[in-house]
């Protein structure tokens, strides 16, 4: 019997949803297990880092890494898996674009640690201890992973061959991606393994979108009784669909919720948030500056809405660091 292709899974800065997505394959996971040999999957199987270190270079066919890179340990694991794998795949929005953890780029390390360890109402920390990378206790010293100033997408840290989009990738997206990777013909390096068209293309409400959309107020889902047939943008809901890659079959929209953009932009777009902004701005009904301002003020949390999954991968990348943090960031590179 010929040796089955080896596959690895790893989890960086993420919620674990992508691991769930793998399990969500349901019975199909049996086919996967029949087709491949899983050599590393910390969430489900008992392998250790040293097991991976012991593997020959390039011996794994595909490593699926989900989660953004937020700590030095995650960066080390990304490099390690890169060297052991023929193909490194960013699985899910966080690895693909930085994801929800990437919104931490609106802050820097110091302010995050301060908020979590000193200021949060539920925190009890009378000594004011903060996480550190070196710790000595009772003659023993330990090295701990460092917490980066900036969250990065996987391909900003190591070379990535493919990305599987979604938060999390739907079973269909993941299954199709897996088939592509195990198939004979690999797509061009860097390809995002989903259709390269915006979500409206597969949206069940597409026909109800008027040609001349004119938005007088942006509404949040709880503010109205949402018509289940009509285009959500036409109802004033901020739907990211026009700027978001298709492939999910418009699951959220079918669930009567606007698309939040998790599959990221199409291959032609460098900055998903900027693109939806420039398209929405042109649909705002107001003519006078004050009226336009009033309409735009109804957009809740603009960065969190337009860049919910893509801030680290966008042209914005992060909030500008002050000079001191910049030096530190440069030194840590």
């Amino acid at each position, binding site marked *: 019997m010929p040796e089955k292709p080896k596959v690895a899974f790893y989890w960086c800065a993420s919620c674990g949803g992508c691991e769930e997505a793998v399990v969500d394959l349901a019975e199909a996971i049996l086919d996967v297990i029949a087709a491949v040999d899983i050599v590393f999957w910390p969430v489900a199987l008992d392998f250790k880092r040293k097991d991976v270190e012991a593997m020959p270079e390039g011996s794994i066919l595909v490593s699926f890494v989900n989660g953004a890179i937020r700590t030095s340990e995650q960066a080390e694991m990304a490099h390690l898996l890169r060297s052991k794998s023929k193909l490194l795949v960013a699985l899910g929005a966080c690895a693909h674009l930085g994801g929800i953890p990437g919104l931490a780029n609106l802050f820097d390390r110091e302010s995050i640690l301060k908020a979590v360890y000193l200021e949060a109402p539920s925190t009890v920390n009378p000594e004011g201890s903060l996480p550190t990378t070196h710790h000595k206790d009772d003659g023993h010293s330990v090295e701990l992973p460092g917490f980066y100033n900036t969250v990065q997408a996987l391909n900003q840290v190591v070379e990535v061959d493919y990305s599987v989009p979604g938060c999390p990738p739907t079973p269909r997206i993941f299954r199709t991606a897996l088939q592509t990777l195990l198939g004979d013909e690999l797509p061009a390096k860097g390809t995002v393994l989903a259709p*390269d*068209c*915006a*979500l*409206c*293309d597969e949206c069940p409400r*597409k*026909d109800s*979108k*008027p*040609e*001349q*959309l004119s938005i007088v107020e942006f509404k949040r889902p709880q503010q109205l009784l949402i018509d289940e047939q009509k285009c959500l943008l036409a109802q004033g809901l901020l739907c990211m*669909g*026009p*700027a978001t890659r*298709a492939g999910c079959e418009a699951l959220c929209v079918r669930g009567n919720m606007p698309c939040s953009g998790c599959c990221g*932009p*199409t*291959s*032609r*777009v*460098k900055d998903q948030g900027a*693109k*939806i902004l*420039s*398209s929405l701005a*042109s*649909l705002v009904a107001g003519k006078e500056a004050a009226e336009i301002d009033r309409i735009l003020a109804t957009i809740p949390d603009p960065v969190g809405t337009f860049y919910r999954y893509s801030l680290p991968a966008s042209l914005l990348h992060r909030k500008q660091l002050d000079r001191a943090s910049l030096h530190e960031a440069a030194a840590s590179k």
Partner: protein
Amino acid sequence: MPEIPSSAIESSRERPRIGVYVCHCGTNIAGIVDVRAIVEFAAKLPGVVVSRDYKYMCSDPGQALIQQDIAEHHLNRVIVASCSPLLHEATFRRVLSRAGLNAFLLQMVNIREHVSWVHLNQREATEKTKDLVRAAVRRVSLHKPLQKRRVSINPHVLVVGGGIAGIHAALTLAEAGKQVYLVEREPTIGGHMAKFDKTFPTLDCAACILTPKMTAVGSHPRIHLWTYSEVVRVEGYVGNYKVKVRRKPRYVIEDLCLGCQECVTACVYKEAKNPDEFNLGLSKRKPVYLPFPQAVPQKVVIDPQTCIQFKSGKCKKTCVEACGDRKAIDFTQKETIEDIEVGTIILATGFKTFDPVRNPYYGYGRYANVYTSLEVERLINASGPTAGEIVLRDGGQPKAVGIIHCVGSRDANTNRWCSKVCCMYSLKLAHLIKERTGAEVYNFYIDMRTPGKGYEEFYDRLLDEGVHFVRGRVAEVSDWATHPSEKGRLVIRVEDTLAAFVRRIPVDMVVLSVGMEPQPDAQDVRRLFNISCSTEGWFLERHPKLAPVSTFTEGVYIAGACQGPKDIPDSVAQAGAAAAEAMALIDAQFVELEPYTAFISEDQCSGCKTCIPLCPYQAISYMEEKKKAAINEVLCKGCGTCVAGCPSGSIQQNFFEDEEIFEEIEGVLAYA
């Protein structure tokens, strides 16, 4: 659209072999930019095969140099670092074409207007030039061969504005055999010139030279004269404009009215009660009226604001009775919209005069005998409200008249520009007032500006006629008498800057030589015809020297004072030039358009419809069967709005593809 030969596409896919040519532009560029350093820098950039400099790249030897290099070194991309592409892009594109390369494999770097003319520091200018050249080298590698589009030209012309400029342009075109639509907002053509008595410096009677032209317009078989009408919508593109014209109801059927004015005599108002617009309110008119005796067309108009029939519906309608069988009066007339198709448009929408209420220290509107120059034109005019007699509002004759120059001109508080015509018309008014009344006439001027054929001579003549000239900006006009000789008169207080003391000069009449301003709706008109305005609001010409009547919109020309203050000879000259430009286009029968159109890749478009309302040219439509958007390439003008607006990046624009722009940006930012 002609196809691009496949050989051209293939050669563009080959590895780039770039030639970089840096122009000295005499010392224009070389005086600030270290041209040799740029040549050496460019030679080392990836893909660059040849890098040279030359004193004048645009000259014949300069062009020959590039052409020869293309052949010898098998160049497939060319960069010329010289002046603005507006000036010489066409020149260098022709060089590429002659050498057998597609013209769009050229990239120009503007190192004159963007570098040498705006920087003083040599080192910095040279470094900036390097960045720009690097950007061009990176961009040009991605250029694809493109083909210009050819569109036919509709030979009909729209002229907007029936002042002297519009009249002259319309007649010139009609005489040349073109069909002309002349649209005028007022009920008659003639514009400002029709209000004048004499014209400077020859003192020709304005009516004598204007009215024959007006009549010619009215009767010309190839001119469709639409007065009391406004353009409300313009669609299309050069050679193929679709225009909607709103014809306001004059409540008189133009075809039936003979201009006999019996209705005016018969109007139930025995006395005229409403301010006469043509005479600037210096006389009265009835609700049914002819704007002025020589109006063209000779058709009356009914003002619904003042006509009893419109106000109460209970008029005896004696006008209808007087009109009798001609049945020209129609109270039920509605506005109509006419759709026309033209190939070219000439805008001659004129100017407005400065409202001197904005300079309260001159007392206009407060003192009865402070007039604007235009009002005085009407007073002097033989067919004006006083039949040419210069009388004050109380009927008396002025013994002394002060003419204040530069009201609303050359003034940091109002308009900074010189209105160009005021010195000359003030001299003309001074002469006419002196001639008709024998009054003492004072001119208060800042500088006397009389450049023009026969203008300085006219000024000399006035000096001999005993008109007084006081050099100084008038501080104030008041009725505050400090001496018995000033009692009941207007006192002009001014610093005589030649004699160096402050004068008080009592006069009976003050004439404010008001300057010229853009029309109040110039911005709306600008948007309607998609042209630009200068910061002051004058319509912007494509080039102040070399394309003075063209605009940045192909096929739209400007003439007369809508482009900036000018006198009658200049307006007429511009009108002739605009007509000639339009004819040049019409007689060529087609025009080549830049191929910078946007295109949608059908398999990438999600059909989100975002782009459709964005297009200012209605070039994008939604294909219901495919559920995708499509761009009509003929209508697309390459503005790029849809490209920026497409949320999935599925619209690209020739010559401005994302990759090309990003390469260029990265090239600029990649400090060496």
